[in-house]
Structure formats: structure tokens, C-alpha cells
């Protein structure tokens, strides 16, 4: 775009009007902070709800129910599900949530049989405590790192929610989005402590299939098995289930997209304003540069480069600040026992930087074009 030797000129132009540049950068930082926060939210929704061909987890839920308190399936369904061709494993699960509505501070318990936790925890990293402690006590809980960080839980602490009191036996990190924000307890303990049907009743079955491309067939087969039963089921891939159960969250996050667009418009306006003011101040200067041999095209590119610098600096600061807030804040929106984790991964950050640079280019295009079209004599006559 421009030769490296011209970069100092661009930087000097930006630094020349320090106050203006700093104010513009500050405004871009704030706008990009909001934009990245929105992107992180959208990324979290995408990760939690977008199915892929490799997904091999199905959720068997009570038909027409989404709040865990309303989904009650007999535990004996497990044996029948296990016999469906294509089913690799079945885990009964009772889910207890302190509130089904969407909010940022929800506590979700997942009760599973002790043996099944070993299978579920295969991809976990135990950050503190141990699963042996979990196994030894009936009222123990293995807490996901996001939930533990949000509530300040440590191994050995007791906490209660939804009428259930548990003791923290382990804190873990998991690559699965739904695991990070829940507390795993013993199934029998949760059935006894939380009521809601009592022993022999679970909220859902988590099924793994041995051939992911056939997951849809397996799901249909499971639903056909219980279609005429007293408690018919609805089986979906886990992420599709999250998308439907977490409809509230998906809607809220969808609405924030407009906020994201608004932030981009604000960045564009701020950078364009700064560039326009800068160009207006340097009309004569540009004429001098043209007189000494700078082509109009180069001058135009220098102006665009200024826009990129302001955009990138503000964008980087805003992106870093947002990423830090998301990383240390460990925010999650939960609803109906499902969570969407706000995630500012490398993809989000790079998108932010690319967008900031692009907006910088866009903001500088019109002033650059105008500046390149001015006649030298006309410029010298300008005040």
C-alpha cells in the first residue's frame, strides 16, 4: 500500500494533533470494546448451538418441555434406549436449576451415576480437589471452573441452591461449553434432595452414538420407541437442543447484533471525523508535497494509512480490554439449565482487529479521494 519509508510520516501526522488523535483513539477503543463484547457473546452462542457432522451427543428430553423442572422421564427408559441400534452409551441425568429464566448468575446441578461421571470427565482437567473425594461423599459436587470463579467456591466449601446443599469436592476445566458452568452431583443424592419426582425419575438422558453421521436416525428411533408412552421423548443433538431450549438467550444475543453494528458506525464516524479534520488542516501541506513530487495517489494512500493506524490502535486497545474482561469475568448467560459462555477467543480478537483496520480504511477513503483530486493552485489559495 505504502512503502515502509513513509510509515514514519503517517505516524507523525497522527501524533501531530495529539489531543485529537487520543480522543479519537479513546472513542474507537470504547466502541470496539462494546463491539468485541457483542462478538464474544455471539461466538458463545455459535459454539453452544452450531451442530457439526462430528457431534455425537444426543439429548433425550421430555417432549414439549424445556425447563428441567418440567421434564420427568422414568429412569428405566435407559435400558430401552441402550438397545437402540447405534447407541454407544446412555447416561441418565437429573438437572436442577435455581431459576429457569435467563440471567448471568444461575446455579445448575447435574446429577449423574458415579460410574458415568468417570466417562463424562474424560476430557476434564481437575484444577483442585479430586474425583475420589467426589466418589466418597454422597453430597459432593464437582464444580465447573466458571461457576467456581463466579461464586468464589473452593474445595471444601459448602453451598446451597434450590434447597440442595453440597460440598465442593473438585473444581474442573472442560472443553465442553455446557460443563463449565454446572456442578455435578450424585444422581441418587439429587433425586432425594431436590424432590421433583424423587428416585427413579430423571430430567434427560445423554446419549453418545457410535457413528455421528447416523445421529439423526438414532434420534428418530429413540423417539419412535416412546412415542405412545405416557412420557414421550424429543431427542436432538445436544447443540440443537441448546439452541431451542436457550431460545431466550439466542434472542437476546441476536438483539445485541444491532448494538454491534451501531458500534461500528460510531467507529466509522469517529475515525472519519478525525481524518477529515486532519486533512482540512493540511490542504496547503498536501499541495507542497505534490509540488515536490508526491503523487496524488500516494497522498491519498497516506491519508488512508492514517485511518488504519487510528483504527488499529483504538481497535487493539478495545479488543484487548474486552478480551481481558471476558477472560477474567468468565461470564455466562444461562437459561433452562443451558449456558452460553461469553468467549473471546483468537478468532473474535482477530475479527475485531480486521474490522477496526477495515473501518479505518473506509473512513479515510473519501477524504483521501478528495485530497488527491484537488489542484495544487487551489490548495495554496485555501485558508
Amino acid at each position, binding site marked *: 500500500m505504502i512503502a515502509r519509508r513513509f510509515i514514519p510520516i503517517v505516524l507523525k501526522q497522527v501524533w501531530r494533533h495529539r489531543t485529537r488523535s487520543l480522543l479519537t483513539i479513546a472513542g474507537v477503543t470504547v466502541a470496539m470494546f462494546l463491539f468485541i463484547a457483542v462478538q464474544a457473546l455471539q461466538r458463545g452462542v455459535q459454539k453452544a448451538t452450531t451442530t457439526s457432522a462430528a457431534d455425537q451427543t444426543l439429548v433425550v428430553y421430555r417432549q414439549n418441555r*424445556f425447563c428441567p423442572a418440567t421434564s420427568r422421564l422414568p429412569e428405566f427408559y435407559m435400558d430401552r434406549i441402550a438397545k437402540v441400534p447405534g447407541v454407544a452409551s446412555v447416561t441418565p441425568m437429573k438437572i436442577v436449576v435455581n431459576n429457569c*429464566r435467563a*440471567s448471568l448468575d444461575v446455579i445448575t446441578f447435574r446429577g449423574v451415576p458415579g460410574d458415568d461421571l468417570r466417562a463424562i470427565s474424560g476430557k476434564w482437567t481437575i484444577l483442585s480437589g479430586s474425583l475420589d473425594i467426589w466418589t466418597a461423599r454422597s453430597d459432593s459436587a464437582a464444580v465447573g471452573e466458571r461457576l467456581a470463579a463466579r461464586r468464589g467456591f473452593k474445595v471444601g466449601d459448602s453451598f446451597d441452591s434450590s434447597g440442595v446443599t453440597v460440598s465442593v469436592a473438585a473444581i474442573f476445566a472442560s472443553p465442553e461449553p455446557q460443563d463449565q458452568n454446572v456442578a455435578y452431583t450424585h444422581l441418587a443424592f439429587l433425586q432425594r434432595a431436590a424432590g421433583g419426582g424423587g428416585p427413579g425419575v430423571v430430567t434427560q438422558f445423554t446419549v453418545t452414538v457410535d457413528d455421528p453421521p447416523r445421529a439423526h436416525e438414532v434420534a428418530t428411533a429413540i423417539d419412535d420407541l416412546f412415542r405412545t408412552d405416557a412420557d414421550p421423548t424429543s431427542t436432538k443433538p445436544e447443540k440443537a437442543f441448546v439452541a431451542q431450549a436457550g431460545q431466550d438467550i439466542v434472542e437476546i444475543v441476536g438483539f445485541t447484533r444491532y448494538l454491534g453494528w451501531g458500534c461500528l458506525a460510531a467507529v466509522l464516524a469517529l475515525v472519519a*471525523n478525525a481524518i477529515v479534520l486532519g486533512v482540512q488542516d493540511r490542504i496547503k501541506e498536501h499541495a507542497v508535497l505534490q509540488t515536490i513530487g508526491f503523487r496524488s495517489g500516494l497522498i491519498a494512500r497516506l491519508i488512508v494509512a492514517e485511518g488504519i493506524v487510528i483504527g488499529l490502535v483504538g481497535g487493539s486497545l478495545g479488543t484487548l480490554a474486552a478480551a481481558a474482561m471476558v477472560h477474567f469475568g468468565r461470564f455466562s448467560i444461562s437459561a433452562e439449565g443451558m449456558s452460553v459462555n461469553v468467549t473471546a477467543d483468537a478468532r473474535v480478537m482477530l475479527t475485531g482487529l480486521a474490522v477496526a483496520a477495515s473501518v479505518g480504511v473506509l473512513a479515510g477513503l473519501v477524504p483521501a479521494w478528495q485530497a488527491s483530486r484537488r489542484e495544487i493552485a487551489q490548495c495554496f489559495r485555501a485558508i
Partner: protein
Amino acid sequence: MLDYAIRNLGRSPTRLVLSVLGSALVVLLVIAAAGFVRGMSASLDVSGSADNVIILAAGSEESIERSEVESSVPGVLEAALPGIRTRSGVAYVAPQIHVMLPARTPSRSEPRQVMIRGVTPTSFLVHAGARITDGRAPTSGADEIVVGRAAGVTLGVSNTELEPGKSVEIDGRPWTIVGRFAAPGTVLEGEIWADLADLKSATRRDTVSCVIVTLEPDEAEFADADAFTKMRPDLELVAMTEADYYSALAGFFRPIRIVAWVTAGLIGLGGLFGGLNTMYAAFASRVRELGTLQSLGFRRSSIVFSLVLEALLACSAGSLVAAAVGLFALDGLAVRFSMGSFGLLVDGPVIGAGLFAGLLLGFFGSLPPALRCLSLPIPVALKSI
């Protein structure tokens, strides 16, 4: 200096329009955020009556939907709890089921989660603000429902689709709308109410979610209901006032309200930086003029006052535009949120907050640039381009 400020506003109509529109946008966002927060809080505050006590299952205090209370409890309560309000021999004891179910009208292919409340006629007694406005209350054995005035927002359909006589599919079976009810300012308006027995049958349960009783203030207090629950530990019940329940629910949504405020604050901050930039440029182009004024004898403080007043006038005008838009376009706007709906509340305090934000924007957006421009010595100012 006021004349000077007013005349200067008219010097660059484009800049004036941009300043007014810019400040109007920021103030409108503040009003929207404040209206959202106020609306949510107010609807939850008003939804709970201080005289009503909710008896529900122990451990379900945060969410009635999880609660299961034996169907015999209303009778036990009526016999054992003194001081329950009675009119014409009818005790204000209302057993209810609260359940979230997917519901849809024929025009929608995808159902939406909505709060369905199973009620008896006494529910219209304990919820004194709820009134049937069209049609009648549902009768038992007929799969009939009444819909709240804002249920259309919750379901994502127009109110014409929810008129008496129309049908709503709930949990895969059709229910006939026989009436509409209003419960102004409360979250009840976003709900659908069905007959208790029919809903029990449809959801295959033999328990209720809660029993709501209205106590006569001179005869009984919340402590009496609390005492009742402690005298029957076999029933595993707790008592809480309706006001406390909705207050706790409001607390549950507090993080959402904080996010709304933080977002509005950040947008305001961004607007401030943009405004500062514009003001710096605007005042910088008038450095010579300001130097001239000083050399004529005008004090710096007067000139600063005039410059700030210019900005305040533009921002005040923008704020009033935003206030008008907020009042006429946003007030009462129904917002669907997390299985319910409420209306944005743009009232005096919210308008005031917006105007205050506008004035802050004008003041802090102009003071630093004004001081900066006037910090130059007069000879330097007079020689500037």
C-alpha cells in the same frame, strides 16, 4: 455572552444539526437503558402484593415453577390459618400451578415458551389488580384459557390472533381463548391462565405449585403463615410474601440491569469522546476570534461560560428531542424477556436521567476544549491561522 452563544450556534447549521442529533442519540440510548431497567423493576415490584402470602415447597423459593405442594394443602391452610380475608363466605385462598410450556398460534410454526398459570376463580380475588376485560374466565373440563393483555408480545403475535374464540396450541394440544385479562404494570399480563384442573390433567400432575392467600391486615400477619409452615413440617412448605418473591426475582435479573446500564454508560462515554473531538476542532478554528474577544476586554471566564453555554444549548435541544422520542415512541413499548414481557417505563425520573446525561455531555464535552483554547497567550492566539 448569551447573545454571542446563540449567534455562534447558527454560524454552522451543519455542525449544529450534527451536535443536536449526536447528543439526541446518546441521550435516547440512556433513556432506553433507564426505561428498560425501570420497566423491569417496576413490573416486578407491582406484581407482588404486600398482603399476599405464597405458600410453596421448601427449596423452591427462587422459582415457583419447581415447587410441588400437595393438593390438600389449600384446605388445610384455610382451616388452620386464622386471619385469611373472606368476602361473602369465600376465602381468599388460591391454589395455582405455574409452568412454562411451549405455545403457538396457527400463524407461527415455532412455539414460544410462555408462563401458563393454572387458576381457580379465587385467583381473581387474590390478584386484585387482574380483571377480565373481554369474555369470561375459563371453565373446568373444556381446555379453555384467558390471555393477558401482553401475551401477544410473549408469543410474538399480534393481539388480533388472541381474541376470544381463537385457539392457541399449548403443549401440543389446542386450547380455546374465552377471555382476556388486564393486570396493569405487572408481569401477569404476559401470561396465559387456564383452569387449574385442566392444567393438572394436561401436565399429568396431582400437585399444585403454590397456594396464594390474602391475609386481613388487622387479623393476621406473615408471621402467622410462617408459623403454620413450621407447625406442619411433614408438608415441607415455606411461606414468603408475594412482594418478597418478586423482589427476589428482581434481584435475579440484577446482573442484566447492570449490563444495560454499563452499555449505556459506555455508549455515552464514546459519545463524549466524539463530542470532545468535535468541540476541539470547532473551538480551535476560532482561536483568533477568541483572542480578539480577550483583547477587547472580555474575561476568559465569560468566554468559557459562553462556549460551554453553546454546547449546553445544543445538547439540551438534543436531549429534549430524545426525551420526546423516548416519551412517545418508547414509553410502554412491550419487551419480551425471558419467558415474560414488560413495558419500558419512560417516566419523570427516566426523562430526568436522560436530560442529566445530555447536560453532562454538553458540559464535559465543551469545558476542556474551551479551557485549552483560552490557555494560549493573546498575541499567540491573534497570530494563529
